[in-house]
């Protein structure tokens, strides 16, 4: 079972802290909103993912273990 990052687009206000803390996985669009890689996060990057999750001022970022929940919400994968 592997970990994935999930952003709640309603809660997200585009602060962009996540992309600074975890640029390997998150880039920002033209308006500063995160574009998150939907893939499995390798173990060595997990601490960075956790830091990004914890730093979001809107608590919009969530690490999840259930691949099914992410797929159900997004319908299609981002990348």
């Amino acid at each position, binding site marked *: 079972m592997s970990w994935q990052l999930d952003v709640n687009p309603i809660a997200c206000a585009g602060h962009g802290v996540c992309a600074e803390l975890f640029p390997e996985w998150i880039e920002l*669009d033209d308006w500063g909103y995160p574009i998150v890689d939907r893939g499995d996060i390798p173990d060595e990057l997990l601490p960075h993912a956790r830091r990004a999750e914890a730093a979001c001022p809107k608590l919009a970022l969530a690490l999840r273990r259930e691949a099914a929940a992410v797929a159900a919400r997004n319908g299609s994968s*981002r990348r």
Partner: protein
Amino acid sequence: MSLPRLLAGVRRERPLSLAEHEQVHGPMPRVGPDLIELIADSGLRGRGGAGFPTAVKMRTVARNRGPRSVLVNAAESEPMSAKDRALLRMAPQLVLDGALAAADAVGTRSVVIAVPRDPAYPLAALEQALAERAAGRRVKLVGVPWAHLAGEESALINYLNGGPLKPTLVPPLPAERGLARRPTLVQNPETLAHIALIARHGPGWFHSIGTASHTGSALVTVSGAVRDHGVREIACGAPLAAVLDSAGGPLEPIRAVLVGGYHGVWVAAEDIDSTTLDDESLARHGGGLGAGVIVALGRSACPLQELAGTIAWMASENAGQCGPCIHGLPALAELLSLLAAGQAPRDVSQRLDRYSRNLIGRGACHLPDGAARFLGSGLDVFAPEIAQHDLRGRCSACLRPPTLRFGVHGHAHSRTAA
């Protein structure tokens, strides 16, 4: 076996009464929970746009604990679609048969029908149909805003639960937690009408027309540069060219056909003859039949104006919740309008491509994905016209009234024929 099925015996000027309806279709059997497996065998998928397997939704609702609900989503908030209102105007009893049978199947007596607050809506036909049957008393009619978002089921449920008409994050799906937090089966009127016929004639009858993967018949709303606008029933998999011909044929040479509405795709004129109206064939163009909107765009129209107007409308109707929609849709609308005026920035193609790609999978609901699909397909099919506008500025067709209607208030219902 033959068509019409849903529209069998209908009259244009008034709805079929309960007695007439039963004469045409026979009495409605009481099937109960077994209906779900009949629907599964029929292959029926929702006719509201997303094409989700109907039986899967029914199973989820039936499996969940506690009191459940059936919500008929009759908002039909796609401006170019008129088929659900046509069905409710002419054959309301068929929709009620399906809604009540679906409620029996998932184990509830609660049925809510959400109708748009549109003065021209065929509400009287529905009220009259409810008054004709005892079970009509347990069906509740509820008015909802006449807006694009009313068709999005999580937004609709949010509104009916006392919140704003804005999508919510799923999961939980409505089938898990919907109306008044009950597991809720949300279906559009046409899907329920198919359920009523499958209950009568069985799954084998249903999939005896259509294709192996897209079974049964479907209602389509045909408009644009064809002689006879209106709602028709087709077998899924019918040739696009034949459906245009059945609408009286083209009024002028066709440039492209929009299939699937504002979340659909453009089929270029040269591809019409190789396209059939089923999801498998339309997937080759990146789309699906959706809610059955078919708009023929004539060569005298300016495709760029159509794209610009539609995206501007979507921008104005967006829920204002998710960054990608809040910023992406207005930015796309502005770029398209600059492009149409011959004032586009040098990197306009890259920006159009990037902005629309960045809508995909990034909203709480699927409306931005639909906008990206519609626009991406348009940019592809109309690349020559776009290059011409970039080079020469406005074309002679730019000032003509657009073929697509941008807004629910220009709804296609006024020109609905059976």
